């Protein structure tokens, strides 16, 4: 018989193996009509695939690539982000965070933190707490009114109801949550090399931090009024 059937096409597509493939091969070789059909289909597939391959080989339009580009260098204004609920900017921040969620979180780079009295972090009972300037900034500073070296980013409640605040300082950025009346550090991320000492980090929220914020936050970030009210109540 010369009818092309499922088996014939499965053979043509390399879907048969072993004896089945050998048997079909023999059948095609012995049958000039099937041989010709195989040839026609191969040529047709090459033509169709070749035509569509020109698409895959062409440059991808900018609008498609742009949709996937991380917002590098785009300055995320934390104060604005904290106020914005539905804004596009917050949308892109969340997108950033979602993207970063695949990355390991919690890289602590101790070398980025200066030691001695001015150290912004102290360790007690295996836990890290904000100290000195970082502690006072977390206690008193509002996102809308940066002063000193520490900038406050987002303020929000975590899943257990505690208030958390993200911050950026020249050498690192991180997240601290209120725990027994103190700011316990939940994550601390070193500024990328060559970027410490300035506020480049404020431009693009560290993706690790963004992911941590995203996974920690319950609900929406505080707006300016909520942030101020929370400060008035001692961050409880």
């Amino acid at each position: 018989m010369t009818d092309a059937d499922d088996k014939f096409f499965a053979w043509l597509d390399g879907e048969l193996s072993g004896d089945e493939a050998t048997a079909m091969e023999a059948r095609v070789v012995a049958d000039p009509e099937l041989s010709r059909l195989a040839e026609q289909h191969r040529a047709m597939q090459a033509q169709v695939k070749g035509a569509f391959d020109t698409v895959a080989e062409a440059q991808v339009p900018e609008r498609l690539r742009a949709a996937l580009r991380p917002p590098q260098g785009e300055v995320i204004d934390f104060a604005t982000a904290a106020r914005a609920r539905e804004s596009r900017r917050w949308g892109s921040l969340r997108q950033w965070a979602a993207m970063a969620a695949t990355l390991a979180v919690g890289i602590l780079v101790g070398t980025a933190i200066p030691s001695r009295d001015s150290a912004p972090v102290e360790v007690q009972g295996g836990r890290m707490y904000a100290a000195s300037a970082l502690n006072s900034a977390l206690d008193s500073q509002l996102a809308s009114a940066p002063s000193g070296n520490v900038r406050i980013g987002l303020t929000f409640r975590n899943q257990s109801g505690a208030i958390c605040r993200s911050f950026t300082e020249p050498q690192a950025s991180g997240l601290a949550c209120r725990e027994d009346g103190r700011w316990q550090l939940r994550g601390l991320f070193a500024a990328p090399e060559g970027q410490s000492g300035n506020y480049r980090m404020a431009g693009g929220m560290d993706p690790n931090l963004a992911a941590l914020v995203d996974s920690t936050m319950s609900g929406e970030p505080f707006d300016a009024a909520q942030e101020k009210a929370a400060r008035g109540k001692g961050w409880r």
Partner: protein
Amino acid sequence: MSPPATFEAHLTALLPRLRRFAHALSRNPADADDLTQAAIERALRSKAQWQPGTRLDSWMYRIMRNLWIDTARGRARKEKFEAPPEDAERVGEDPRESLHASLDLKRVMAAMRRLPDEQREIVALILVEGFGYREVSEMLDLPIGTVSSRLMRGRTALLAMVGEQ
């Protein structure tokens, strides 16, 4: 230290293939890129549903195909009341055109468009994108016999349209 490859980076690397698939499904290049963009947006929104370690390409193809099915229904209703797309009528009008890659693409797209949707997607996935029968059967949630019979009908129709030129 170089950052680990992100979801976005993997997706960006897939873009050429995704566009190729979109062109095989769509009626013209503009629709194809709209479909690609919609698939990217949906992927970014539902990123949490993708399980790292599983194949991102199959996941993306499925997203694109489902979007295409959704929009194809609305489109089919609309096209009933419209003149047939002129590209289809010009197939083979000038034999010299086939020398040019982009016109060749136009012609092949026009032929693909004449296949029923359920054949077109399978022809695109297997003959153009190079997936195996089993992969496509899992991707589209169809029995493998359905995949192979639709493929057979689709490629036979294509051969009649494309092969004779």
